[in-house]
Structure formats: C-alpha cells, structure tokens
C-alpha cells in the first residue's frame, strides 16, 4: 500500500448559506494519478478549493504529507508544494506566456531543462512564448495553466476539468501529456469526461451530493459497466 499524500476526513464546506461538502473522505496516494469523478454540482471543484484553502472547511480535517492544512492560508498551502490548475483556463490573460510561467517559478529563475521538458508536451507554448496569453486559443490557454503548475517540481497537482470546452484533437494531446506527467508527479484530477480519464487514472473517487460515494482502483471501475451505470449514469460503450 503506497503512502497517503493527501487525506480529507469528514470535510464539510459551507459557501454562504449552502452546505456544499457534506463529509468528504478522500485519500490521494503518493505517485500516480487519482481521478475525482462526478456530475455537475457534485462538489468536485469545491473539494479542490477547500484543499487549497480558498474556502475553509467548516468541519473535518485536511492533511497534506502528515501536516494539518485545514485552516492554512492559500499561499502557505501553495508554498507547501500543492499546485492548482483552476477550471476555465485560469491564466493571467494580460501577461505573456513567459510571464505567466515566471510567476509560478518561486525560485526566481526558470530551469531551462524543465522548460524544454514542458515544451515537449506543449510545443505551442514555445511558439507563443512572448505573446499575451489572452490572445491564445482555448487549448493553448489550458496548456499555459498546466505548464504554470509544473514549471517547478511540486508534490501534488490539483487539476480541475482540463478538457472542458476543448476539441478532441487537443484532448488527445492532453492524455499523452498527463500519461507522462503522472510518472513523476502526484496528480488529483477532477473530470466529468470519463473517456478521458479511464485509461489515465490509477485510483478513482466518485462524488455525489457533496460526499464520496465510491473509491477504488480505476481499472476496476473501467471494467465494471454496471458500476459505472450506477455511479455515473453512463455506459462506457455509449460514450466511446
């Protein structure tokens, strides 16, 4: 059994009068890719934002590498080694691609070898290096957001719906990138697109109504159409 890097125990989160997370229990093992699946409004994005301290848990505990980060401030959580790629291509559109990545390089300078490694996944970034990120296409903006998260080695990447609104050809490129990324990084990936993640994920958790309703190995879920139907209301065959 691999070491647990991130652990949520009975986490509740309220946003205003709404009780969004209602006792989330989630474990992310060190190394590999964990997928957080669920329909719209299940609480996936809120889970990531609660981990990042953007919304603090009203009850429960969030531990990262053994440290309690439940009440920690977002910058401290980031400095502890968690990178967050928000949904909707969360880039700084007025800044250039270079400046977007430079912001994430807390060491001050970007490692050239690591940059070349990133350009290997996303060649378009090299081409548009000095262009305002706001002028890029949707797929390229998503590449900037992911590249920003990995410009320095992190202990955990939280990635929120990276394929949202992207063309199938770009999604295929993302699959290749994530397959290579998960060899060196620990990733918690939120997705609705089951086809995208079923071949990528090592472990999976399914959310519904603000709770985790299933947790296990992705290979088991991918092989069990009845369970998919029950948890996600879909059949892999229908969506392939």
């Amino acid at each position, binding site marked *: 059994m691999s070491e647990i890097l991130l652990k949520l125990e009975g986490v509740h989160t309220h946003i205003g009068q709404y009780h969004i997370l209602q006792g989330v229990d989630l474990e992310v093992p060190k190394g590999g890719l964990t997928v957080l699946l669920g329909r719209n409004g299940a609480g996936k994005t809120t889970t990531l934002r609660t981990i*990042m301290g*953007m919304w603090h848990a009203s009850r429960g505990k969030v531990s990262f590498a053994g440290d309690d980060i439940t009440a920690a*401030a*977002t*910058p401290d959580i*980031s*400095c502890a080694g968690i*990178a*967050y790629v*928000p949904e909707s291509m*969360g880039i*700084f*559109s*007025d*800044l250039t691609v270079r*400046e977007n990545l*430079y*912001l*994430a390089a*807390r060491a*001050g300078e970007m490692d050239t070898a690591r940059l070349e490694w990133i350009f290997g996944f996303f060649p378009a970034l090299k081409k548009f290096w000095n262009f305002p990120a706001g002028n890029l296409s949707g797929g390229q903006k998503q590449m900037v957001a992911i590249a*920003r998260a990995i410009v320095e080695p992190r202990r955990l990447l939280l990635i929120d719906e990276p394929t949202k609104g992207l063309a199938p050809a770009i999604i295929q490129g993302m699959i290749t990138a994530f397959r290579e990324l998960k060899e060196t990084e620990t990733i918690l990936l939120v997705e609705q697109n089951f086809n995208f993640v079923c071949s990528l994920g090592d472990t999976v958790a399914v959310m519904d109504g603000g709770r985790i309703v299933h947790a296990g190995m992705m290979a088991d879920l991918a092989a069990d159409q009845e369970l998919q139907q029950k948890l996600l209301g879909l059949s892999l065959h229908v969506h392939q």
Partner: protein
Amino acid sequence: MLTTLLSGDFPRSRALSVLLLLVLVGLALAPFLVHGARALNVAATICIFVVLVASYDLQLGYTGIVSFAHTMFYGIGAYGVGIALHAMGPGWGPVALGTAAALAISLVLALVIGLFSLRVRAIFYAMITLAVAAAFAVLASQLSDITGGEDGRSFKVPEILQPSFRLMDGEILGRAIDGRVVTYYLVFASALALFLLMLRIVNSPFGRVLQAIRENDFRAEALGYRTVVYRTLANCLGALVATLAGVLMALWLRYVGPKTTLSFEVMTDILLMVVIGGMGTLYGAVVGSALFILAQNYLQALMGQASEALSGVPFLSQLFHPDRWLLWLGVLFVLSVYFFPTGIVGKLRAGALARSQKSP
C-alpha cells in the same frame, strides 16, 4: 541603454512613440520654447501630474486598488515642505526635513490604511479612503496655526530656486537662467527620474505579481503570493511617490493650500487623466496628464478664438463662447471614453498589435 532606461517597456506603437517624444522634448525645452510665466507653469504642472497620475496608476491600473486618498498623500508632501520652509526659513535643510517627515507620515498612513482595509472588497476600501481623505482635508483647514487654514501658506524657497536668483549672466535662446528655470529643471529631472523608477517597478517581477493580483487575486494566492502584502506594498509605493509629487508642487508654487492639493477636484482630475491616458500603462499617465492640463489651460482661449472667428454665425458663436469651456471639456472627456475605452495608449497599442498580426 534605452532598454535598460525604459525597463524593456517600449511604447509598442509608432504613433505613441511620436506622441511621447513630442511631450518629452516639449517639456525638456519648455523654458526656451515658450515664454511667459503661464506657459512654464503649465509645463511644470504637467511634469508633476505625470508623476502623480503614474503613481495612482500603479495602484488603480496595475493593482486594481480604487483609492480616493491619493490627494491626501500629495497634500502631505506639499504641506510637509511648505510648513518646514515657513517655520524654519528658506534652505535645503527644511526641504530635506519636510520631505523626510512627509514621507514618514505618508508611509505610516498608507501602511495602516492598507493593512486594515485592503482585505475588504474594493468598494469598501474606496469608501474608507474617501472618509480618511475628507477627514484629513478638514484637519488641514482646521489646524490653521500650522497649515494656514483655508488660505494656505506662502513661503520662501532656497535661494537658488528663487525668481531673483541668476545662475549666469546673459541669456540662452532669449531666456534668462533665473531661479524659476532652475526650479523647473529640478521638477523636470525629478519627475523623469520618478517616472523611470515606476516604469522599473511595474516591469519587475513585483510588478507582474501586482498585475496578476489585479486580474485574479485567488489565482495569485494559489501561486503562493500573499495578496494583502503585495497590495499594501503597492499602496505604500503609490503614496510615497504621490508625496514626492506634492513636494515638487510646493517647491514650484512656493505656496501650499487645501485647494491646490487636498481638494476632491484634484482627485477627479487624476482619475480623468488615468482613464483618458489608459489604465495599466504608465505611458498613459504622460499622455493623459499632458492632454488634460493643456485642455484645462488653453481650451478657454482656443474657444475664444473660435467664437470670434464664428461671430457671424449666431448659434455656433454662442456654442463656442469661452464661458462654456467646462462644458466642452466634459464633452471631450465623454468622447474620449467612448472612442478610447482602454485609453489613448491602450487604443494605439491595440491598433499597432492588430497591424503587426495582419502583416506577414
């Protein structure tokens, strides 16, 4: 060298480069290009407002901080030097002491206002700064023994800056090099140095973080940046530069009063200059200040000439009557916002970018 001087932030538009060069050369040679006290006063006011507006843009345009207390810091600078020179007599000692005291007071005030209120929403912060600035203006007029109240204070500046001082015998290009010319070049050189310093700040990694915070503070925090700290630092920097602009204004006018520094009219003028020039572009401060102050000073005279020329046409001569210059200034502002929503600099840069992307 130019890259270092401009911190790599070039105008990125030919029209803008020409415009900026015109302003720079015009201001650099103003004492020899124009004659008369009024014209030189306009040039010096432009220099000082370039600094003041740029320091406001550092807060509003680069960091997204809406503050109405900028004139308060400007006033602190002017009053600091004014009170010191009035109390201690002319000399560089009082200038240095007044400037240092003003900078210290501004720093403490900006720090306190920032740390206590930059956590709240932008609109609440704006309201807090409005209240603090109004309270300070009332305080300045009430403490008449120190500040001179509503009448303000006139004072003597160091000898080299006094109009009776002659730096050399004879004239250069028909202009005697007196204390006013010396003061003008002190203002011009200080303004240029402060502007280049701000250009360096906004183009530094610190400046990029400020822009990131303006665009999305949650994302900036997720990258590990404490946005309150950065906002407070930007607030302090803007306040300190505004204080120095106030010092320059006091030295130029040899007078300090609530109307010239602390009034809400000055604050709205600064806002208009930032919007007209273009927010988030320091060059916008140059263009906005130059156009606005020129219009403020010469539109009335220009309209008088237009009215005279149109004296035979009944409606138009009345429409361009010099008394209506404020109405036309308002119309010009509305038109500039309508046609240049991103400011003149934003529009010129966008045009240049579009042309460069079209060309193969």
